[in-house]
Structures are given as C-alpha cells and as structure tokens.
C-alpha cells in the first residue's frame, strides 16, 4: 500500500500544470489611444498592475510570420509604467510580446496586437 501511495504521489507531482496567465497583467497601454505611424521611431507606454523586474523581463516586437525582435525597455516615472522603444516600422500588423517577471515572483507572458498606419 505504501509503495502504491508513493507511486500515486509521484504521479501527482508530475501531473501539475500552472496557469500561464499569472499575476502581473497589462492594465493600460498608449497604443489604445495613440497609434504608431509608419517610418518613425516611437515609444509605447505600458502600465502593469504589479512591480516588474525589468532586468529579468523581455519585450519583443513580433512581425508578420511571427518573427521576434527584442526591444529596449525602461521603467517610467509613474507606478507600474514601462516605456518600450519601437523602431521605425512599415505599415502593417504587429504585436508586442512580453515575458515579464513580477515582484511577487510570477513569470507572465502576454501579447498586445497593434497596427501601424501609413
């Protein structure tokens, strides 16, 4: 019986899956009201609900074909604000993909899709 319980405990320990949608989430972002125009560099403001360890986070620009480019980001002056530097882009569909490490220890992934107008 003991070995059976042990077997099942091992089963359980290999049967867990966490929720990828963790604690830190984007609560607001400037792309909602300020679109990005083609062929000019820009900055996107993103607000998180939690403190973000930016040194342990990555923000990617995703282009057509799901090609990823790592972007430079810095903390803003406001609470939870992160400023993301966007390079000059052609008109089209893009996305920002985050992998952020929140101060409460959770790693979160999220995506914001946006269009670049001509």
């Amino acid at each position, binding site marked *: 019986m003991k070995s059976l319980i042990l077997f099942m405990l091992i089963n359980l320990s290999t049967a867990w*899956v966490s929720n990828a949608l963790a604690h830190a989430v984007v609560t607001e972002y400037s792309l909602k009201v300020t679109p990005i125009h083609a062929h000019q560099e820009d900055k996107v403001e993103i607000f998180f609900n939690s403190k973000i360890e930016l040194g342990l986070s990555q923000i990617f620009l995703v282009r057509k074909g799901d090609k990823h480019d790592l972007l430079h980001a810095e903390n803003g002056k406001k609470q939870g604000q992160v400023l993301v530097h966007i390079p000059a882009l052609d008109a089209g569909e893009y996305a920002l993909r985050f992998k952020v490490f929140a101060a409460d220890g959770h790693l979160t992934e999220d995506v914001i899709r946006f269009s670049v107008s001509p």
Partner: protein
Amino acid sequence: MAGIADFLDSLIGGFDLICFCLLIGGLFWGLFLLKPWQTEHGYNDALLQKTIQLIYKGGFWLAAAQVFKVILKIWLMTAILDRWPFPEFAETTQFIGGNIRAGLTLLLASYCYIYLRKNPFSKQVWIIAGLVALPMIISGAWLVHAAGRFDNRVTLMGLTVIHQLAAAAWVGGVLQLVNLWFLRRNQLVPVGLWPLLLHRFSKFGIVSVLIILISGLPIALQYINTWNGFIGTGYGNLLMVKIVLMGIALAFAWLNRSAVFAQRASGDSVALNTRVPHYIEAESSILVALLFTAASLASQPPAIDIPNLTASWQEVANAFHPRIPRTSSPTHEDLLAGEAGRVAIIDQVPSPAATAWSDYNHNISGIFLTVMSLFAMLSYLRLSPTSIWASDKLLVLKNYWPIGFVGLGVFLFFRSDAESWPLGPLGFWESTFNNGEILQHRIATLLVFTLGVLEIRARMLSNLNTRLPYVFPILAAFGGLMLLTHSHVGFQAKSAFLIQVGHTFMGVLALILACGRWLELNLDKPGKDIAGFISAAAMFQIGLILMFYREPLY
C-alpha cells in the same frame, strides 16, 4: 524542459503551504491545545515524539521547498528568457526574501529537532520555539501576492500573513488529529486523550475559521470589486472554489463537533471512535485540496485588474447550459490544417475544427461518465425484490460499471492532444516534457485507465481485508486536484477562463466523489449508503458538465 519547471513551480506552492501548516499549525497545537507541561492528562512519550516529529519534519521540508522554489525560478527564467538570470535575480525580493525565509525556517526546524524533541514537556522550550517561529512567519510577507501591489501593500501583506497563520492553525490541527487517531488506534496513547483533544480542538477550530474569514474578506474585497469579477474571472472562480471547499470542510467539522458533544452528554463513544476518524480523514483531504487551490489562486491576476477581460454571468451560465452533445468529430487533417493559424500571433485565425475537436472529446467523455454513474446510482436503489436489480444481468452490470474508465482512458489517449503522438507529428517524449498541458493530459489518461482497472479488480475480490478499494478514492482525489489547476494556456484571458470554469467545478465534484467513496468504505449504515450515493451523484454531475461542454472559439 520548461514545461516541467512550470508545473513544478505551481506544485511547490501547495507543498510549501502543507509544510507551513505542519510546522506552524503543529506549534499552535502544542502551545494552545496539547500543553504538554500539563501532565495530569496522561501525555506520554509516544504522543509527544510523534507530535514534535511532524513539526520538525514539516520545518525541514518547508526549508527544502523554499530553496527548491528559488532553484525552480532560476530554471524557469533560464528556459523562458533563454539566458542565465544572474546577477539581476540576486537583487530581487524573491531571491533575497526566499533565501532569508529558508534560513529562518531551517533555524526553527533545527531548534525543534535539537531542543523540543529532547524536552517535549518543557513549557519554556515550547514558548521559545514559538518565538523563534515569529521572524520566519514575518519574512513570508515579502513572498506573497501582495508584495508586488502598489496600493495598500503593507496592509495586504499583513492580512495575508494573518490569513495564512489562521489556516495553518486549522489545517495543522486537523493533521495532528489524524496523527492522534493513528496513535489511538494502535493503542499508543490513553483512550481519554482522543475525546479530550477533539473537544479542545472544536473551540480552537472555530476561532481559527473566524480569523480566516475576518482576514480573508478585506483581501477578497481589495482584489475583487464587482460581482462579475467574482463570477467571471479565474481569480474569482478559484476564490469560489476555496469557499465551497471550506464549506465542505466545515460540514465535516460540524459532524465532529456534534459527535464530541453527544459523547459528552450521553457518554456514548461509538460515533467518536467509528465515524469521526473518517470524517477527519475526509476533512484533511479537502483542506489539502484547499491549500493547493490557494497556491493556484496566487498565480491569477486579481479581478480588479482585468475589468475588460472579465466574462459576464450570462457567458459563465452558457458554459453550463444543457445542449445536445457533439457526437461527430472533425477529421485529424482538418484539425491540423487550422493549428498554424490558431497559434499564430500575427494574423491569428480562430480554428472551428480545434473547438469542435475539443467539444467532441469532452462530450464523449461526459457520456461515458454519465452512463457509468447512472449504473452506480441505481445500485443504491435496491428497494424491493421486484426492483430492476432483481434481474441478474443488471446485478452484474452494477459491479462492472468502472470498466467505462478503461474505455475512457483509451479514448483520451488517442484524442487528448491531437498535435502529438500517436496521432500528431510531435513525438511522445518531446511533447510530454516540453508542454505542461500535454503532460497533464497524459497523466490524467493514465490515472483514468488505472482507476478503471483497479476498481474492477477491487469489486471482483472476495477478500474483505484488501486495501485495493481505497485506490479509487485516492486516485479520484488526485484527479480532482489536477482539475482544480487545469489550464489551457493562451493569451486570451476570457477564453481561458471560460474553459477553466467548468474544469474547476469538476475538480470540486471529483473531490466530493473521492470523499464520498472513502466514507462509503469506512462508515457503517446508513451513512455508508448516503456517502456512496453522494459519490455517484457527484460523478453524474461531472458527466453532465462534460456532456454539455462547449469551448469558446479562439
């Protein structure tokens, strides 16, 4: 290997809480209930050594879990960020706070092992152990959900620590009661200790539960600000599960309390010695599930932060709405053709074939369970010799309904993850160890299949002393725990929640099923039959949820 790190990270949260309850709850038990220095109650060395063993073992395991948590974070970050996370990680609260807490826990466990174990009757040593615990308890505040918040951070951190302390007092106390019963059953402690400590714990438990509620309510109000947030988010949904599980645990606690007072009034100890131990076993399994749910809750974004991603109550109700089950599946080719568009970030195209594939899997599984549970429920309705069970053929079916689990296991093996082996292009090991969701499905399939084989075997055995029938409730409880943390990973929070909501309710029902069957195996009549019927009815409810399941298109 990122998938393994990911789910171990969640698992360790629940394990951490169980160890915390053993350590801190055990100290509460010793200081406020047992009071070993009051020797007139006939405490003996066997009781004290076993009690203290649970405390320091919980402490050592907690320290190990804390260190393992930090290692897992490093592993996870290396896998996700594709680089070594130092030196940045060394400066985070999680790294510093985690290591400090591990060190303080180790100090406390060592004190209990070196001094408390050798001086179990010393009031002074128990009090010092309590004082040594204080810095460790306080250090945990920097590792909770609230540590990353901007508003009311300190208040929320403090309330969370109080909430955890009260929960540790309750759960740790129940685990000590289980320990006491084992000692009592093996006649290692005086007979009178069992009713005495049960009586003491009934008052202590009420105070613990009140503190859990008083500290939990403001936390809940801070994280959930609307009814929709309670009903329509993952955070609210898991909180609801916690409330339901707590209600079930309190129902068992009430049964225990009633038995204690009945014994005090009439002197009749039958219920106290034959039913209460099994109620406490069931209560402890519900409380362990509650701790894992609490750990899972901490990984959800609070409802207050995602008002635009919250499902309406109509959308939630629609997830449970009765409808004709889907009995035809799209072809495997249709499914794979839509997968590239479904998982794309740019130019994402929802896949109706993927949704229909999933609906079919869930609905057919529901039909399996509904039919099985109908036979199981009918077996309790042997009212007269003229009833349908008088027929020999149906009587045979009554014992063999668990064969449905075997069929369900085979069905799930082929259908669960269409993109991986045996149907899809991804290899077995590659898909299993790189994707937490596929890994969970594989284990669930194995559990279902094993459950069917063992339960049929158990029902065929004529040996009444075999422990094989107990495998069914244990596996069902594990299945319930898996469902409580079931996750379909995706970036669409609302769709992910609408998938999650059905699974978490099935998880609660699976725990009811497990507890019901456990009690059926242990209680006398009529409680035995009532528990058995509730167990089968819970399985029927799971079948209905699955049969009517519809996945949102995403």
